[in-house]
């Protein structure tokens, strides 16, 4: 497993627009140029590159939980961490089961966890190289009145975050989950 962690001050920020950069000379922690809360550090990004197997998904959950532990003023942080851990975990298992469909050593999932200041939110992007595409709108909701063997995964993802976007292009599937904090 390769793990890279990027935090402000020691990383390149290739996708950062001029409007998001702090003014020269301004402290990146103050947030004065963007109005972001000081404790959020304006542009906190963690990147993980995990093998597409179930074995190491616990690392993703632990990473997300620790990342959220650095955010002040969250209401019900333990429940929030659990819910987001479950949402990204379910997205990964969906990628493993349905996008890749088989375990091969070269199959990877690239995950980016990004704290955005305005509106204060956590953006979780998950990317695979499995190709293909599927139509989210065609995934049936589970019948919750009866126990289901399948079908809870996407229901949980949709229920636990504020936005779920999926797109497929150039052989990549990209999931983008957004949770307002």
């Amino acid at each position: 497993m390769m793990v890279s962690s990027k935090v402000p001050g020691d990383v390149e920020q290739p996708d950062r627009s001029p409007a998001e950069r702090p003014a020269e000379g301004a402290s990146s922690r103050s947030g004065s140029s963007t109005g972001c809360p000081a404790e959020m550090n304006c542009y906190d990004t963690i990147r993980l590159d995990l093998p597409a197997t179930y074995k190491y998904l616990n690392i993703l959950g632990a990473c997300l939980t620790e990342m959220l532990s650095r955010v002040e003023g969250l209401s019900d942080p333990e429940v929030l961490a659990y819910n987001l851990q479950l949402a990204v975990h379910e997205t990964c298992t969906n990628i493993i089961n349905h996008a890749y469909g088989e375990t091969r050593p070269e199959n990877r999932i690239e995950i980016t966890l990004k704290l955005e200041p305005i509106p204060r939110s956590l953006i979780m992007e998950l990317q695979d190289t499995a190709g293909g595409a599927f139509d989210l709108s065609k995934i049936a909701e589970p019948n919750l009145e009866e126990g289901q063997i399948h079908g809870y995964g996407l229901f949980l993802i949709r229920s636990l975050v504020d936005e779920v976007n999926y797109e497929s292009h150039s052989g990549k599937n990209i999931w983008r989950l957004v949770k307002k904090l």
Partner: protein
Amino acid sequence: MELTITEHIVRINIIAPQGRIDAFCAPELRKQFEVLLGKNEIKFILDLSAVTFLDSAGMAALVSLLKAAREAGGDVKLVWPKEEAAQRILRLTRFDRVFDIADNQKAALSSF
């Protein structure tokens, strides 16, 4: 006076997993369920009080046991996880309607 006394023993299996029940661990749990079902065990208590994380694969394992047990004339009762967030997920997915969920093993035993 003649008395006929018979003894009726109800066998209930209490299974208490600890930690995570997720896609990585769920196959092992299902295997355990199949072993017990293969021995004609049909009544189960799944004590989730020490479960810290439950994903959809774990939920599917619980439902598969429930279906198999009920088909054989038995049942599965749950004990609530202590983890509040896990409780909320069980309510969100309406597991509290599909299963009887008790506060502890004693209450689950008495619900059979």
